[in-house]
């Protein structure tokens, strides 16, 4: 028993335990999804649900869990750098079609803000909760910066961003079947604009070109919005 207590208070032991649990459940969930590809079995849904169950049964708070696994989230940094490779590989496609992609990013960013504002108002939400919903279509580091700029709660925005990614990656496939999309550009932009990082991962499964377009669109969306956020914050107050 004293051994267990020692283990549960040692930060190194905690880091090893929660990191191993997270990584192990992720790969297990991924294998399950490969065997049985249903949208509600997405690894980004199954693994967190099991982890929540484990943290609750261990009486571990989110604060303690996150401190042990923060290094995994930090790896989103080099992942962003890695986007350079598919983007560079598709440079001919991008050079030829950048005005189309820029139009998509502007239309998409406007639609994201207006639809979130309109739907939230319709359902009776207001204040910082409504503002926190506005930047949900961007990737996390951008979204949190924009959220702070316009008067939202960055912490809450991060949760909304992740949910947008989880459901967006799954919804995107359904939308793809419903719309008569002819170009690889539209298919890539759909995922990059609608579901940021998780959407880009999904787009890479559909095709290498779709994946790099989605990655590029995601980066463009973040940059445009971070630059426009101070202006938007001024307009909203």
């Amino acid at each position, binding site marked *: 028993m004293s051994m267990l207590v020692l283990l549960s208070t040692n930060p190194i032991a905690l880091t090893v335990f929660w990191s191993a649990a997270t990584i192990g459940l992720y790969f297990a969930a991924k294998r399950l999804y490969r065997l049985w590809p249903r949208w509600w079995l997405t690894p980004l849904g199954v693994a967190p649900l099991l982890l*929540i169950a484990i943290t609750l049964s261990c009486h571990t708070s989110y604060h303690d869990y996150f401190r042990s696994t923060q290094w995994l989230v930090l790896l989103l940094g*080099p992942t962003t*750098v890695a986007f350079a*490779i598919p983007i560079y590989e598709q440079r001919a496609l991008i050079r030829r079609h950048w005005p189309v992609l820029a139009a998509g990013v502007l239309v998409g960013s406007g639609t994201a803000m207006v639809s979130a504002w309109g739907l939230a108002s319709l359902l009776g939400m207001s204040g910082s909760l409504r503002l926190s919903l506005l930047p949900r279509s961007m990737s996390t580091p*951008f979204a949190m910066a924009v959220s702070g700029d316009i008067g939202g709660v960055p912490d809450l925005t991060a949760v909304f961003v992740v949910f947008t990614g989880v459901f967006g990656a799954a919804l995107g496939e359904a939308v793809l079947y419903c719309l008569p999309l002819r170009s690889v550009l539209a298919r890539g932009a759909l995922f990059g604009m609608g579901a940021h990082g998780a959407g880009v*991962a999904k787009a890479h499964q559909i095709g290498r070109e779709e994946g790099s377009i989605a990655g590029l669109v995601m980066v463009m969306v973040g940059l445009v919005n971070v630059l426009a956020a101070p202006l938007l914050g001024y307009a909203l107050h």
Partner: protein
Amino acid sequence: MTTRRFAINARRGLDLSRPLQIALLCVFWLAGEAVARTTEIPVPGGIVGMFIVLALLASGRLSLLSMRRGANWFLAEMLLFFIPAVLAIMDHQELMGWLGLKVLVVILAGTIIVMSVTALAVDLCFRWRSAHVHAGPALD
């Protein structure tokens, strides 16, 4: 002569080793963070690092082979890095009830709207441009 051979061997090793490439990507990320912090631009360090790598690739100072395997690994396992952030929901008990359901409706409906509008706008622009501008063969 021996230094040249060493350089060639080092390059060949880098082209084949995924762990080394993963480390190299991390180095560029840290460099991006350092640049973003010292210049105080409001852009995440990863994005700065991505632009550094793009510039090096475009100028021919870096080859695609020296990073492709590492980059593919990061892109394939990206969802893993999101998982600890999803658990932040545990700290927001207020979202567990009615309010959470309403937020979910906003996210789901909003995302469908954003995806449809964006994809249709891009497709329309693409068709208009291929009809009016000679942008080469159409891509399907």
